[in-house]
C-alpha cells in the first residue's frame, strides 16, 4: 500500500471532492426551485398542460443519467449547439434531478388532505399566501425525507460527469491512480469520501424523518 501518494496528491482529491460538493449543492438547489413549478403544472387539471410536462418528467426518469450527459455533450453540438463541459454537466444534472424532485413534490401535494386547503380558505387565505403559508410548508415537510434520499442519488450520479472531463471526485481519483498506478489506495479514499458525504445527507434525512412525524399528518 502506498498511501503516501494520497498524501502527496491530497490537494487534487480535495479539489475534486469540493467540486462534487458544490456542483451537487448548486444543481440540488436549482432543481428544487425548478421542481416547484413543475409539480404545480403536474397538478393542473387541464390535459393540454399536464400532458407535455408529464411526458418530459417521465421521459427523463426513464433514461440513464449517463445517456442524458452524452446527449448534451456529444449530440447537441451536431445540431450546432455547443456548451462547455461545466454548463453541460450542471444543466444535465439539474434537469435530470428536477424530474425526480418534481414528481416527489407532486406526490406529496396530491396526498395533502383537501381539508387543509379548506381550512386555509375558511380563515381568509387564498392565492399566493395560501400556497406559501399553508400548502408548501406541509408539502416540504412530508416530502423532505424522500427529497433527501434523492439528493444521495444526485451525488452518486454526479460521478458520471467525469466522462465529460469535469474534475469532480471520481475524475480526480482516476487522474491520481493513473499517474501513480495506485488504483486501490486512491479509489478507497474516493469511496470513503463519497460515503462520508452521503452519510452526512443520510443524517439530515433522519432528522427530516423525525420532523415529518411530529409536524406531519397522522
Amino acid at each position, binding site marked *: 500500500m502506498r498511501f503516501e501518494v494520497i498524501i502527496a496528491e491530497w490537494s487534487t482529491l480535495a479539489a475534486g471532492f469540493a467540486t462534487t460538493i458544490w456542483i451537487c449543492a448548486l444543481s440540488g438547489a436549482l432543481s428544487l426551485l425548478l421542481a416547484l413549478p413543475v409539480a404545480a403544472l403536474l397538478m393542473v387539471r387541464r390535459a393540454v398542460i399536464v400532458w407535455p410536462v408529464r411526458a418530459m418528467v417521465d421521459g427523463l426518469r426513464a433514461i440513464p443519467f449517463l445517456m442524458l450527459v452524452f446527449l448534451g455533450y456529444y449530440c447537441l453540438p451536431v445540431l450546432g449547439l455547443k456548451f462547455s463541459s461545466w454548463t453541460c454537466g450542471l444543466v444535465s444534472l439539474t434537469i435530470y434531478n428536477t424530474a425526480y424532485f418534481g414528481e416527489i413534490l407532486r406526490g406529496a401535494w396530491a396526498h395533502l*388532505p383537501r*381539508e*387543509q386547503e*379548506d*381550512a*386555509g*380558505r*375558511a*380563515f*381568509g*387565505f*387564498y*392565492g399566493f*399566501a395560501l400556497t406559501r*403559508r*399553508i400548502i408548501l*410548508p*406541509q408539502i416540504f*415537510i412530508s416530502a423532505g425525507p424522500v427529497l433527501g434520499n434523492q439528493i444521495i442519488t444526485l451525488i452518486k450520479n454526479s460521478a458520471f460527469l467525469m466522462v465529460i472531463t469535469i474534475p469532480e471526485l471520481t475524475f480526480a481519483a482516476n487522474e491520481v491512480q493513473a499517474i501513480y498506478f495506485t488504483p486501490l489506495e486512491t479509489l478507497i479514499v474516493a469511496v470513503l469520501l463519497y460515503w462520508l458525504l452521503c452519510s452526512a445527507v443520510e443524517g439530515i434525512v433522519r432528522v427530516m424523518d423525525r420532523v415529518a*412525524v*411530529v*409536524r*406531519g*399528518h*397522522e
Partner: protein
Amino acid sequence: MWLWSVVMSSARPTPVVAIRGLGKSFGSLRVLNEIDLEIEAGKTVCVLGPSGSGKTTLLRCINFLEQPDEGQIFLAGERVGYVGDAQGRPMTQRELARIRTRVGMVFQHFNLWPHLTVLGNLIEAPLYVQKRRRNEVIAEAEELLDKIGLQDKRDIYPSRLSGGQKQRVAIARALATKPRVLLFDEPTSSLDPELVGEVLSVMRDLARGGQTMMVVTHEMGFAREAADEIVFLDEGVLVERASPEQFFTKPQTKRAQQFLQRLG
C-alpha cells in the same frame, strides 16, 4: 314605505347571519332547498337533522366554501359572495377572504395546520390574513389558550395532542380572528366518547358568554341545554324552527317527531 323600513329596522336589529331562499344542488341531487334563517347577535342556533340532510352544506355556504346556486346570504348586513343587491357581480378572492375572517369555522376533523405549533395555529390568520401586529396577536392568543385550559401546550405540535385538545385548539383558532359568528360542523363527531365533554364544555362557556354560534351537531344534550333555537333540517328542507324546550318536548312536524323517536 320609508317609515315602514325605519320601524322595522329599529324593532329588529340586523341579524349577524341572514339566509334568504338558499338553494344548492350537487349535480342532480338537491341538497338545500329554499332555506330562510337568521341568527341574531349573541344567540346559539343548533342545526339538527339526519345525516345527508344538508346541514354541513348549509354551514359551508355561509362562508362560501360551498357556492350556493340560489338565494342570498348576509353577514352583519353585508352580502356574502356577491357585490350589490340583486344578482350583483361575484366577489373577488380578496373580498371573499375579508368576509371569511369574520366567520370562524370549526371542522369535524379539526383541520389544524400540522406544520404549526398550537400558538402558530392561533396566530396564523390574524398575522398573515388580517395583518395585525405580532405582539398584540400573541398576547390575545395566549389569553385564548388560557381560556381553553391549554396554555401549557403553546409550543406543541398538533400531532402530540388528543382529539379533544385538538378541537379545543381549533375553537381557539376560530376565535383568534375575532369573528362575528362561529360555525361548528359536527365538532364532536370524530372524538372518542370520553373526550366529547371537554369540547362541549368550552362551547357551552362560549354560548353563555354571548358568542354568536351556529352548531351542526348530533349532541342532543348540548342542543337542548345550550341552544337558543333549534333548526331541524331534513332532505335539504328547513322543516322546523323552535325553542329547544318546544322542539324536544312537543315537536310540531311529523318528520321531527320521527327523528327524535329514532334517537330514543
